[in-house]
C-alpha cells in the first residue's frame, strides 16, 4: 500500500558535513519492509525527492540522507515542526524471509541508511547479521555506532584508510568473525557490481535512480533485468542479484 500524508519534522541534524538524519512523525502504517522509501515534496521544487527510510516504528520514521543537490539542501534546512508532504510505503523493500542464519549487510556511503531497519528486523527474526560499511574517508563515515549499539559486529572500510580497513567493503569481508551465507547491499553501482559478481553467496541489492512519480506510473526509472523491464520504484528498489544484468 501507499499513502500520501503530512509528516512533521521532530529532528533534523547533521551527522557530518554531508549527511543528515531527519526524524518525522506521522502515519507509518503502510510500511511493510525495511528498504522501502518515501518520496518527499520539497517546497519550491517540482519533482519529489525519493529518500530511503533508515528505520520506522509506530508513528515515526527516520531518514538518513546526503545533501547532494537543491532538493536535499532545502530538506536539510527544515526546522523542527515543519511538515513535509510524503508518499510513504513505496517500493518492495528487503526480503527478510530468505533462508539465512548469518546475513551480511553492506553499505556504501549514504547507502548504509536502509540497513539499520533491516538489521533490526533480521535480529527480531532470530538471525545474526554482520555489518560492513564503506566510505571514501573518515569525514564521511556515518552510522557505525548505531549498529554497534545494537550489538552487531560492524566493520568500517575507507578508501583512504583514514579509519578502519583501507579499501572497499570487499576488503573488509575476510575480517568478519563468521562467514556470511547471504548478503544485502546498498551503495554505488561499482560496489553492488563487485559484490554481486564477486561473492559466491546469494544476495540482493537496493538501487537508486532519478525518479518521476515513485509509484510506478511514469516509468522514468525502468531497468532491464533478466526478467524483463522493471521499475526501480515499484518492482524495486531491491533486486535479487540474479535478476540484474551486470555488464
Amino acid at each position, binding site marked *: 500500500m501507499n499513502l500520501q500524508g503530512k509528516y512533521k519534522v521532530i529532528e533534523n541534524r547533521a551527522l557530518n558535513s554531508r549527511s543528515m538524519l531527519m526524524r518525522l512523525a506521522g502515519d507509518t502504517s503502510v510500511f511493510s519492509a525495511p528498504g522501502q522509501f518515501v518520496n518527499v515534496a520539497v517546497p519550491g521544487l517540482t519533482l519529489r525527492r525519493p529518500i530511503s527510510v533508515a528505520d520506522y516504528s509506530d508513528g515515526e520514521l527516520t531518514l538518513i540522507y546526503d545533501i547532494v543537490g537543491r532538493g536535499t539542501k532545502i530538506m536539510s534546512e527544515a526546522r523542527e515542526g515543519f511538515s513535509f508532504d510524503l508518499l510513504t510505503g513505496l517500493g518492495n523493500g528487503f526480503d527478510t524471509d530468505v533462508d539465512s542464519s548469518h546475513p551480511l549487510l553492506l553499505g556504501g556511503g549514504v547507502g548504509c541508511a536502509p540497513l539499520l531497519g533491516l538489521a533490526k528486523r533480521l535480529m527480531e527474526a532470530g538471525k545474526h547479521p554482520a555489518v560492513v560499511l564503506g566510505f571514501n574517508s573518515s569525514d564521511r563515515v556515518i552510522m557505525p555506532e548505531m549498529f554497534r549499539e545494537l550489538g552487531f559486529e560492524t566493520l568500517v572500510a575507507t578508501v583512504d584508510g583514514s579509519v578502519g580497513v583501507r579499501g572497499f567493503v570487499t576488503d573488509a569481508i575476510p575480517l568478519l568473525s563468521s562467514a556470511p551465507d547471504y548478503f544485502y547491499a546498498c551503495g554505488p553501482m561499482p560496489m553492488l557490481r563487485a559484490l554481486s559478481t564477486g561473492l559466491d553467496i546469494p544476495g540482493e541489492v537496493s538501487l537508486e535512480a532519478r525518479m518521476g512519480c515513485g*509509484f510506478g506510473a511514469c516509468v522514468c526509472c525502468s531497468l532491464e533485468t533478466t526478467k524483463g523491464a522493471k521499475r526501480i520504484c515499484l518492482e524495486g528498489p531491491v533486486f535479487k542479484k540474479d535478476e540484474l544484468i551486470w555488464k
Partner: protein
Amino acid sequence: MEINRTPDLSVRLGDLSLRNPVIPASGCFGYGYVMTPFYDINCLGAISFKGTTLNPRFGNPLPRVAECEAGIINSVGLQNPGIDAVISDELPRMRAVYSGPIIANISGFSIDEYTECCRRIDGEKQVEIIELNVSCPNVHGGGMSFGTSCESVAEVVRAVKAVAKTPLYVKLSPNVTDIVSIARAAEEAGADGLCLINTLLGMRIDTRTRRPVVANTMGGFSGRAIFPVALRMVWQVCREVSIPVIGCGGVESAADVIEMMMAGASAVEVGTANIINPCACRDIIAELPAKMDELGINSLSDLKIK
C-alpha cells in the same frame, strides 16, 4: 426551489458521455491500476492509458527525467509492453479496478504500425476512444515527426479510419509553426476529435557535470509552466474546427479545468500533476462543484467563450 443542488459535471465527447471532464493523460497514470493504492479511480471521467506501440519497447536510457521550474522534462521513449500484451495483460488488470471509458493512446513509427495497433485495439471493451500520438518520428519520412506536417497527419488519420471504428482523436504536438493548419488537416481527414497539447521539446544541462540531465539529451517539457501555451493553442484550434477538443497541458486545479473549457475544450487531460500528487485528478474533481458555484456555473457543457 432546489437547495444544495449538485452541479452537473457531465460532459460529452461526440456521442460519448463522461461523468466529468477530468481525464488522466497518457504516460502519467500507467494503466490506472498503479493508482488504486491512492484512490478509487472510478471517479474519473475517462483514463488515457500509457502510449502503446505494435512491438514492446524498453525506451530510452536513464536518467529519463529532469527537474524544471514549474515543470519536468521526460525522455521515457515510449516504453511499453506492445499492443498484444496491453490487450492480454494490462487491459484486464485495468478493467478489474475500473469500469469507465478507456482512451487507448497509440503510437507508431510508420503508417502500418499505427493501423495495425488500432486494428487490434478496435472493439476492445471500454475502449471508447483511440488517441493517436503523432509526435513520434516517421521512420519512412526521414525521421520527421508525423505531427509536424498536414500531409502526414492526414495520411495517418485516413489510414486508421479505414481500419478502426472506434472514435479517433489525434493528440497534437505543439512543436509546429501552425497548429491550426495541422488541426484542420486532421479534421478534414476524418478525425472525430483532437487532444492538445503534447509536451514541448525541452532540455536541461547539469552545470556541474557539463552533461545534459536526461540521457537522451532532449525530452518533453510538461507541467504547470506550459498551461498558458496549451490554453492558447486550444483557443486557436477551437475557433477553427468543429470536432471536440480535449485540452491538455499544465492543468493542476478545478480553476484550470474551467479555464481550459472556456477556451473551448470539451474535456481536459491532466498529466504531470499526477506524477507530483497521485491524487491530483480526484482532488480536481472534488474541487469542481465549489469552483463552479463560485463562478456561477451550472453546467460544464458550453462554457466556451466567444
